[in-house]
């Protein structure tokens, strides 16, 4: 474990060294994300001019939820997204080769090697917005709910990463990730809506087989409904289940990996 943390330390150092060379990109990302945050806040603001509740949550609750989405997304973008972007190219161009000969988990290496240091400022921005949304909430949250919320939000970030990789691993057999990415992005939109709006089979799918609703919406519910073991166990069990399935698929993928001609 200590060794992997030290390796991650190297990745962080390398990524910051690299990112600081591209200042324009650094500022561009901050601007892009600030616009995205603004558009989403405005969208829900407009929506609540026509309704008093969405999926059982009022405006203040949805504001906390959507700011949680910003933080979850910023974490995913900073820690995992670059690596997910490059993954299909590495498989198709045979560039996994060097990862596979190293005496270290290739999955770890591939998933966190590239830390998006140029998104780091967005992460601080997202933390600030979430703190603001929680602070302006009419009733103060109790400490236990806040701790469990933050913990489940971090589990949600991990779940987000597992789901994104799950949609990319088939590239070992399909050799193209375009369609897979599109499907993933379509599903990913469910992450940024309160789970209360999904009813019937759709609600069941989004909280079990494809648990996008567990990434932010379920963790947020502990702030409003109090911490229940059902929610905690549900999020942890679903995350573990999807993670084990991803590991199984990953191993199958590596068996099918054909590299590329030299």
């Amino acid at each position, binding site marked *: 474990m200590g*060794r992997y943390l030290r390796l991650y330390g*190297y990745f962080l150092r390398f990524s910051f060294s*690299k990112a600081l*060379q591209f200042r324009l990109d650094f500022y561009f990302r901050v601007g892009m994300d600030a616009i995205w945050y603004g558009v989403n806040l405005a969208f829900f603001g407009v929506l609540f001019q026509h309704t008093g509740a969405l999926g059982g949550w009022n405006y203040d609750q949805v504001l906390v939820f959507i700011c949680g989405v910003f933080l979850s997304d910023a974490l995913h973008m900073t820690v995992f997204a670059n690596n997910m972007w490059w993954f299909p190219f590495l498989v198709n161009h045979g560039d996994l*080769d*060097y990862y596979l000969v*190293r*005496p270290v988990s290739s999955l770890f290496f591939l998933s966190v090697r590239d830390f998006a240091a140029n998104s780091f400022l967005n992460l601080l921005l997202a933390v600030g917005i979430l703190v603001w949304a929680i602070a302006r909430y009419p009733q103060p949250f109790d400490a236990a709910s806040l701790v469990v919320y933050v913990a489940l939000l971090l589990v949600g970030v991990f779940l987000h990463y597992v789901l994104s990789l799950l949609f990319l691993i088939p590239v070992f057999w399909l050799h193209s990730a375009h369609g897979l990415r599109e499907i993933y992005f379509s599903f990913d939109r469910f992450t940024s809506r309160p789970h209360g709006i999904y009813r019937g089979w759709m609600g069941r799918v989004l909280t079990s087989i494809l648990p996008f609703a567990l990434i932010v919406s379920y963790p947020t519910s502990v702030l409003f409904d109090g911490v229940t073991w059902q929610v905690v166990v549900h999020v942890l069990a679903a995350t573990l289940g999807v993670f084990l399935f991803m590991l199984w698929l990953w191993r199958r993928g590596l*068996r099918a990996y054909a*590299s590329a001609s030299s």
Partner: protein
Amino acid sequence: MIEVDRLSKTFHVYRKPPGLLGSLKSLVKRERVEKRAVKDVSFRIGEGEIVGLLGANGAGKTTLTKMLAGIIHPTAGDADVLGYRPWERDDRFRRQIALVMGQKAQLWWDLPAADSFLLLKEIYRIPDATYRENLAYLTSVLGIEKELTIQLRRLSLGERMKMELIATLLHGPRVVYLDEPTIGLDLTAQRAIRNFILAYREENRPAMLLTSHYMEDIQRLCKRILILRDGELVYDGSLARVVERYATHKVVTVHLRRDGKDCPTPQTVGDLGEIVSLDPDTLKLRVPRGEVADAAAALLSRCSVADLLIEEADVGDIIESILTARGESVS
């Protein structure tokens, strides 16, 4: 150290007819083709041996190397490298092997190589003292101590290749796979890399499997070669034996003295061998191996000879003729 037993690899590929119509057809029905990249290959490589792996493009060299490095799974057969099955990717196995691919970089492009080496130190759990000792040895032998702290993308191709070699050997591997380590390098850099590989072999005695399209690499580094043709191992033996067996001729070059004697003509020397070139200063003849002594004696008596040189046929040409001789067995 390396034992390969009837190793095979079959890839499945799809054929697509050309053009838009072909693309539309392949949407409905695709022709699946089996491509046997490596067929029942068996051999052994011992400690301190550098074995050359030769073959035309697509002969299966890289596929074989990647199976032995644990990158791809074989379809059939088995291999034992240092007591491990490579494709099971045991960390203890991976700590003892190394792979260099001349066409693929492993170091961070935007950082100095020294930074990447520190990461490799952590990956391979190299103790501080060993790391310092190995790095000092490798950089001094390759003569690139000063370039260590320069961003990789600012280095020349030769310097980058040297850095790649250091990255490969820092952890002191017992088995090294070298896939085109000198590709694209100028002659000076090629020579430096070859000298380094020989020095490293003497010092550390690893088993090495070398793939190269440069015959100079093979001649300088390998006493033993493996020849792959269409995925099959058609020769496993010494390089010298191939030359002896397949070089049916030697080349005799005569530098002529311009002292008034009659210049040789096809009529006067044509019976001694096949004339490769003839001008007033030089005569080059291709002579059957068994007749070289007689031909040389005849040339000395018939021409005014300033110098006479007898050479083996070009090894590259010999190997080339074996690689392209479809279906013929090699002994």
